[in-house]
């Protein structure tokens, strides 16, 4: 993936032959500010309720969680960068077009499941898939699969916080959902927009 803007996706040829430009980065956005405020208020409430010891207990626990997560975040970032570079865009898109049928949905699901990294990997790649000819159905299957059965978030967050048993069980339950969501998406899309892709890029 080489082009962060969804409105003018990069031509595939360029993405493969030229070094890609840096991604758009938002170091401190509104979300960060809102969360920081929320954390400050919460910490103050904990301090009022449990005193300094309560605040330090949570801090110690969360710091150890944080140090455990860091290497995985680094691995996810590296993996995302390498895959974005070596992804065979054309081949992927051919298997994921509007006429790819159930196989396209399954490929989208598998692709989302093995796609590493966080939202900073998944959404740019999904956007690239759309741009190079994947349809809404397969792309929905990919995004839903990434979010529900992708291992990246499960490893980095869900297993440490919710436990291995719950996580594996929840993933098992989620297995059919990406294909179903993709099929529903394709079904609705072809009825909402009978003419294929004609006005996709108008705004």
């Amino acid at each position, binding site marked *: 993936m080489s082009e962060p803007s969804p409105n003018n996706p990069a031509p595939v040829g360029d993405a493969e032959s030229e070094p890609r430009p840096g991604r758009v980065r938002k170091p401190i956005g509104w979300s960060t500010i809102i969360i920081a405020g*929320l954390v400050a208020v919460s910490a103050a409430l904990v301090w009022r309720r449990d005193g300094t010891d309560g605040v330090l207990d949570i801090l110690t626990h969360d710091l150890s969680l*944080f140090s455990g997560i860091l290497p995985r975040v680094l691995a996810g970032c590296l993996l995302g960068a390498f895959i974005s570079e070596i992804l065979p865009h054309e081949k992927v898109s051919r298997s994921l077009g509007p006429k790819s049928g159930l196989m396209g949905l399954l490929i989208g699901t598998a692709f989302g499941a093995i796609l590493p990294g966080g939202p900073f990997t998944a959404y740019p790649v999904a956007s690239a898939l759309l741009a190079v000819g994947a349809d809404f159905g397969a792309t929905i299957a990919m995004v839903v699969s990434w979010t529900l059965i992708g291992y990246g978030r499960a490893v980095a*967050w869900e297993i440490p916080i919710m436990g291995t048993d719950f996580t594996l069980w929840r993933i098992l339950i989620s297995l059919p959902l990406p294909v179903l969501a993709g099929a529903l998406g394709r079904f609705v899309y072809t009825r909402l927009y009978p003419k294929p892709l004609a006005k996709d890029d108008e705004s």
Partner: protein
Amino acid sequence: MSAALLIDILLWGSVLGVGLIAFRRGPPVFKASLREGTMDFVNIVPRIALGVIGSGYIAAIIPQEVITGWLGPDSGWLGVATAVVAGAATPGGPVVGFSIGTVALKSGGGVPQVVAYVVAWALFAFQRVILWEIPFMPARFVWFRCAVSVPFPFVAAAIAMVIGKP
């Protein structure tokens, strides 16, 4: 935690694997990817630090009785529907979402309701949609995907009711 260790090995193995493929495309490609990945990491660390270290406090002040009442095992489909709304409305990153799920489970929430909460949060938590998905993807696709996703937390809860607890 042996499953986590296994997945760790898988994760770093994949990094090595794709790194090798990138390296065979040529050292400039490899170096550019390496730098890109490292910069992503450096940029993402402050946000993760805030989320991880802060979410413990947010989880600590969530009134547990409220969640138990909402998501309790006796709350049925109304509890599932509440869980879906709560999942969509949960602010913050994965730590907050999963922490609330854990709190709900530990304080007596029903398993199908917690599954519906986690799945709804994963599918269409408003903050991730607005801050991550919209900037990267065509807005028309994002709204379409969210609308199509609405039934699926309910489907997940139904499956959880059928196959039982973990």
